[in-house]
């Protein structure tokens, strides 16, 4: 028996099953209960959004230079405005802001170059960002070379310090994490034991404790001529702490790669490092993008903890400004501003990771 002699031509879907109206009907108004919840939800949203917009934008005061310029009905962004450069540079001397600005601009340029797919020479840019840029940034920010006056690290602060801590932490934590993850999966007992102990130690201790130990305890034990800059100590503590988390994220990714991948690479005569570097790691890292970015974001926010050892990151400097007697009572504005800046950076990282995931997706795994 033959059912269909001719190929059945493609027909459009029935009316009212596709399109935005159908979506609304299917997802928000399918039945009386859901319709009530939808309307209720819209009402709650209205209650929250309208006063917020009113406070933050419509009734807000933007220009001025003292608290008298604020009407006190809406937000007083004058406070943020007046303190803006401090929020960006901390206690960095204002006549040297141009040095920080150059570093900021280069940093933004590098990020843009890496993120925009059309721009060429990504590999050279990566090398520049990892090898040359840190030297330039150090020379410019720290000074003491080429007639630049020295600006000691305890005057660094604000967003500049936050970005410095976060980028050094990320760039350091990823490779250390990779090595620790591989070490933990190694067959060599000494390497494995070392990695397990290292990871479990750093993961088991709160970051605050590590920062505190680095800043208060370490100088007690080390001879005074060996004293390391407080910022460097914080950087090392932060990097090692995050690399332990990173190692576990990457180990999870490595475990998700089928054994056959490593076997196929081995059967082609590849050495361990080539198998890892060319076959296993690229796949694992790709799968681990959400986890890695998650760690990066939490690292970014964890940088605020350096406050307890007397470094003024963005949040720290905002808090310090709040206790200024001329600006008492503007803590909401200060915290909202800090939260907004943090959110911008974290949200950008999150969006970029989603873009990367889509770009690197080459079909199903085997």
């Amino acid at each position, binding site marked *: 028996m033959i059912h269909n002699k001719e190929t059945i031509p493609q027909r459009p879907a029935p009316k009212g099953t596709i399109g935005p109206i159908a979506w609304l009907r299917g997802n928000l108004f399918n039945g009386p209960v859901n319709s009530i919840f939808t309307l209720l939800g819209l009402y709650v949203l209205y209650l929250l959004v309208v006063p917020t917009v009113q406070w933050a934008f419509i009734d807000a005061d933007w220009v001025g230079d003292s608290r008298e310029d604020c009407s006190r009905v809406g937000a007083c962004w004058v406070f943020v405005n007046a303190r803006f450069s401090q929020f960006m540079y901390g206690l960095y001397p204002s006549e040297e802001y141009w040095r920080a600005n150059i570093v900021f601009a280069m940093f933004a340029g590098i990020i843009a170059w890496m993120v925009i797919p059309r721009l060429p020479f990504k590999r050279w840019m990566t090398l520049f960002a990892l090898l040359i840029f840190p030297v330039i940034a150090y020379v410019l920010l720290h000074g003491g070379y080429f007639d630049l006056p020295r600006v000691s690290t305890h005057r660094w602060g604000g967003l500049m310090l936050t970005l410095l801590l976060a980028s050094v932490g990320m760039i350091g934590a990823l490779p250390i994490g990779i090595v620790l993850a591989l070490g933990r999966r190694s067959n060599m007992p000494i390497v494995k034991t070392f990695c397990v102990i290292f990871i479990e130690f750093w993961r088991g201790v709160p970051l605050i404790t590590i920062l505190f130990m680095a800043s208060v305890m370490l100088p007690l034990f080390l001879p005074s001529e060996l004293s390391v800059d407080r910022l460097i100590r914080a950087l090392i503590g932060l990097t090692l702490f995050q690399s332990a988390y990173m190692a576990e994220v990457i180990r999870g990714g490595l475990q998700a790669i089928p054994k056959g991948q490593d076997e196929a690479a081995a059967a*082609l*005569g590849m050495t361990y490092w080539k198998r890892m570097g060319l076959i296993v790691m*690229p796949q694992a890292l790709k799968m681990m993008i959400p986890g890695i970015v998650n760690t990066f974001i939490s690292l970014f926010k964890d940088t605020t903890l350096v406050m307890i050892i007397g470094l003024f990151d963005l949040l720290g400097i905002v808090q310090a400004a709040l206790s200024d007697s001329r600006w008492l009572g503007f803590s909401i504005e200060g915290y909202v501003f800090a939260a907004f800046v943090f959110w911008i950076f974290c949200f950008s990282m999150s969006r970029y990771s989603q873009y990367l995931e889509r770009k690197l997706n*080459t079909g*199903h795994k*085997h």
Partner: protein
Amino acid sequence: MTQAATNNSETSTSDTSTSDLMVEMRNVNKWYGDFHVLRDIYLEVKRGERIVVCGPSGSGKSTLIRCINHLEEHQKGEIVVGGIPLTQDVKRIEQIRRSVGMVFQHFNLFPHLSVLENCCIAPMWVQKKPRKEAEALAMEYLERVRIAEQATKYPGQLSGGQQQRVAIARSLCMHPDVMLFDEPTSALDPEMIKEVLDVMVELAEEGMTMICVTHEMGFAKQVADRVIFMDQGQIIEENAPEPFFNNPQSERTQLFLSQILGH
């Protein structure tokens, strides 16, 4: 241990010079924990010989060929591949693996690399060939397995049969002296088995040394010089295909053949 193997005069290798032997396994034993997976394996494969290994699942056939390129480690006995004794030495293992190609049941193509890159990666990184040369070589072999037009695609975009042919090309790009096939058609839909077997038959006819774990008895009859039957970790019977299929000696072989040919 009773070895019911019945070598016929044609395949007995006692009078062959060692240089002609591609693979020698002498008294090879392997355990997974307490489980004795390979028991007193003796196997010699001459250059250009085509061997088919069959047997019920769990009989150790995959383990046997995986020992040849040290994807599995044997605990006792001696394995010599192309004149090089297989030891723990990593450099030596890698040297042997460069001359031994392997095709897996589940293809194991690298999903993050295109078909062409899958074929180029080992010539470029292991044999240090320049990219141009590696790509030309890869295209030549992709042509031979009739899949050159898919070179820029990713493995996930290909059918199982196409993926397995790419996997064969990937191995051939290393110019192996011997090819190991580990149930290459077991994971394929029936209509794709033939396209892979055709490639393997061509390879056999070109004189490639092949050791093939497979249940494709038609393929065994067509190209094999010897068929080896394994059960419970031992080689039970070993013979040329014609006598092997028509006149199996051991009871277990007869039972196995009746089960896979009988329906």
